[in-house]
């Protein structure tokens, strides 16, 4: 993977992502309203049926009348409505997201607080907030990957994203990669009064271990593994086919092939293990006793 020739930015420490509440965060109410209006319009026939059963007259003059077998479809209707609600909100907010990207094209670098990029980063974040919350909170299995794709994150095929914080922009995730529980993948960091935005690249078939933090500018090459509880420093490059551990990452270990680990296991099996010896002793004692 190639990297742009950026002047290397040295940070004393790695902080966190932090987003302030701005008036723009009221967009969540607009999203909620639009989602439920579409839900209402699509469900008119169902409401009509309910109304017919309750009052005997129709809610509006066209459409379906209440039949008992409509109620067999109720579970399907509920699940469909959840999907419909999330997808209208996703589509709507992806549109706004693209509009914001056109108004101020996202770029990497270091920005002052209150600058245009700082403001637009906050706006992009608040647009992405509610759809991602929905995808995580509702019982929908693969929607979170779809959401990230809609917001311009490149997510490959057969990717597993467990629950964790992943920034919606400047992140590339390759095919067959897995990110574990409670990870933070930051593409932006707060540094005193400034904000740093750098692209994160995660290659093919990587594993990002649980409770890890991936800092901006990290490049994980193909088949790299980031170990449990470790974090990468800014602009660190993790070599492929190795396991990386440390806070920040400093130790690398080889990945053992299946055959190697099998051979080791067989060697261990040849010797009687402690547990087996103990069990034999206990059995002998029981017989004697």
């Amino acid at each position: 993977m190639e990297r742009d020739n950026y002047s290397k930015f040295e940070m004393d420490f790695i902080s966190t992502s932090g987003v302030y509440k701005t008036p723009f965060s009221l967009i969540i109410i607009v999203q909620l309203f639009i989602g439920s209006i579409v839900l209402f319009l699509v469900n008119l026939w169902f409401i009509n049926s309910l109304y017919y059963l309750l009052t005997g007259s129709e809610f509006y003059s066209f459409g379906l009348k209440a039949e008992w077998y409509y109620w067999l479809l109720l579970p399907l209707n509920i699940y469909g409505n959840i999907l419909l609600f999330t997808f209208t909100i996703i589509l709507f907010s992806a549109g706004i997201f693209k509009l914001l990207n056109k108004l101020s094209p996202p770029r990497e670098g270091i920005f002052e607080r209150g600058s245009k990029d700082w403001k637009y980063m906050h706006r992009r974040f608040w647009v992405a907030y509610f759809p991602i919350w929905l995808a995580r909170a509702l019982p929908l299995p693969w929607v979170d990957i779809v959401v990230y794709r809609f917001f311009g994150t490149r997510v490959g095929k057969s990717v597993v994203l467990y629950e964790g914080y992943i920034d919606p922009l400047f992140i590339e995730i390759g095919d067959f990669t897995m990110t574990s529980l409670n990870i933070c993948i930051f593409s932006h960091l707060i540094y005193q009064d400034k904000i740093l935005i750098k692209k994160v690249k995660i290659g093919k078939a990587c594993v990002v271990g649980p409770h890890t933090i991936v800092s901006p500018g990290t490049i994980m090459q193909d088949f790299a593994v980031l170990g449990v509880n470790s974090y990468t420093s800014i602009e660190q490059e993790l070599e492929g086919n190795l396991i990386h551990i440390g806070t920040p990452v400093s130790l690398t270990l080889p990945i053992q092939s299946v055959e190697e680990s099998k051979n080791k296991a067989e060697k261990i099996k040849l010797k009687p293990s402690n547990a087996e010896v103990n069990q034999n002793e206990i059995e002998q004692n029981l017989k004697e006793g």
Partner: protein
Amino acid sequence: MFQPVSLKGDSPSPIDERIRGKYLILYIGIIILSLVPFSVFEYSYIIFFWNETNYWLFFILLPFNVLVAIYIIQFSATLISVLILKIVNLLHVPKEGNFKRSLEDRDYLFWNIRNIVKKCPLYVSASNPFPWFKNRFTLWFFGVKIGKKTICDNSWISSEFVSIGANVIIGMNSTILSFGIEQDNFILRKIRVGNGALIGAKCVLLPGTVMEQNSKLSVHSYTSYDQVLRENSIYLGHPAKLKNT
């Protein structure tokens, strides 16, 4: 923010298993009482809108109904638990110090009862999908003062013996604990975080930590008991140590 699984719950307030069942009625009572204003609101909503002229309004205003209902539940749960908390605090005044972790110790017992009382509002505010009136608002009722322009919605903050200044950034997934359980001992100490301090992601502040103004704690580190982080300096490590510059 896009909260991980562990953050969807309430703030850290474990309850001793030995008394969990004993005070269940208190917990359920708070839940039921906090749902009364919600049901009154829904009743009046239906009475007002469910007639021949307002059917369309009934359905169109449903999203706002949901939004208001969430905040009504949160607010009433907080108020009721604050009222009960005041009564509990009259019986036993909460204080800092080292205690024994047994139910004969009144401090430990009442700490557990306080946690039971606070559990419902903290859970409701943590699982609120909207970013307004969350941690800062709820914790203010329990006496935790958090300054203005502080980012604190993505972290666990203990609901007592914590004071946080203005312009503080508390990182994603970090935990602020004002209590510690060490084998048979139970420790309660106040945590102070000064103005403009910065706590990185996945940090843990243990009881008694004092962060002075503009001090910074790097990512993925934890402090030891009663540690003082000096002004304008950077700390990192397990436990946190001053960074050599």
